[in-house]
């Protein structure tokens, strides 16, 4: 009896410790925090009349069916927005590559295995004015009809997420684009070949 118990215990422990490797990522990714930089005013089209100090874009951790029911998947903010006149609202868009898994437990999802680039979310940023600048922020919402209720049991991977902020209601117009996600590296006044501070 004691032997049987020991063997059972060892087998149970062994099964718990040696879990077979999963074939799919099992945990939803944590939130992504991107930063906003001024759209390509240096070499490409942008809205030259609007500038800002800083900005951020956040995508929350997502688990089905939340993107279908609540639709809010993140938010976007711009600080120190300067233009004449100051904006009262801006528009934001998040585009992404949507890769649907090939496994659907009940086999009714029509986009099974699809790999498409879509507008994943849009948002209106409402601005509050403080002094000579404005702070603009708003939620990113999944468009109605983008996600099919039959597909909430299918794993969805998002790649190549791109956040953009435009003048209000001018999404897609390059000349009205204010910000995109990225990183800005601030220059020093005197470069390192001319004796700038902190240089090697």
């Amino acid at each position, binding site marked *: 009896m004691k032997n049987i118990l020991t063997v059972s215990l060892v087998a149970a422990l062994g099964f718990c410790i040696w879990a077979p490797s999963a074939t799919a*990522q099992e945990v939803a990714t944590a939130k992504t925090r991107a930063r906003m930089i001024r759209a390509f005013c240096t070499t490409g089209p942008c809205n*030259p009349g609007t500038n800002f100090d800083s900005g*951020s874009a956040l995508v929350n951790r997502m688990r089905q069916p939340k993107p279908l029911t609540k639709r809010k998947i993140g938010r976007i903010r711009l600080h120190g927005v300067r233009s004449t006149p100051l904006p009262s609202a801006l528009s934001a868009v998040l585009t992404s590559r949507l890769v649907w898994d090939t496994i659907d437990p009940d086999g009714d999802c029509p986009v099974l295995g699809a790999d498409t680039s879509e507008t994943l979310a849009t948002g209106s940023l409402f601005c509050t004015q403080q002094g000579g600048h404005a702070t603009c922020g708003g939620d990113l919402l999944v468009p109605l009809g983008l996600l099919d209720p039959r597909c909430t049991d299918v794993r*969805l991977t998002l790649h190549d*997420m791109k956040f953009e902020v435009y003048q209000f209601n001018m999404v897609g117009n390059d000349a009205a684009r204010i910000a995109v996600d990225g990183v*800005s590296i601030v220059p020093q006044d005197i*470069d*390192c070949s001319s004796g700038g501070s902190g*240089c090697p």
Partner: protein
Amino acid sequence: MAKLVGVAVAALLLFAWPDPGAAQEKGTASVRLAMARAMCTTGPCAPAYNFRTGFVQFKKQKQPRPLTRREVGVLRLDGVSSTGPPLPTVLDGVVSARVNFATTDPDADCADTGADLTQVVATSTMNCRTKGPTSSSCRGKLVLSPGVFSDPNCTDVQVFLSDIVVEIFENGGVGDDTKKIARNGALVIGKTPDCNSGGSGCP
């Protein structure tokens, strides 16, 4: 009088209107991007490896730091598991981006002024530590690639990075899609049953 007011208003507008060439004056704060499994569903990937979570973090940068300290962030994958081969001891990370140099250089000696390039900006050698018999945790520093932001003439020119892509490969497999394990993105977990079949939390 009306003319004077007109001139005053015009002058005010002229000075209040931001300079089109004016740069964003603050450097962006740190960036944190989550990692999702590379396209094993529809594209090539390293099918034998999986992971639980991962992220890449870029520190805030201000010149001349990229020139003097080449480490710009960290890369991490946790819960790395394998369906066959041994757990990895080393993984390779690569960050590519569109690099956009501003057109303004105070002393006009930067050769890259106004350049707009897509290139590998940083790499990482991630060392893995075994966490139990079936998984390991891999992390590494993100280091600027040789030649990137290394010109001392350009530390007075603003740089923008956009279209950032972060990829993690098996050791020695950089550029080979069949050895790609992760890419920046987000994973939305499915829930059974679906909303068409009475799933919980559905409308």
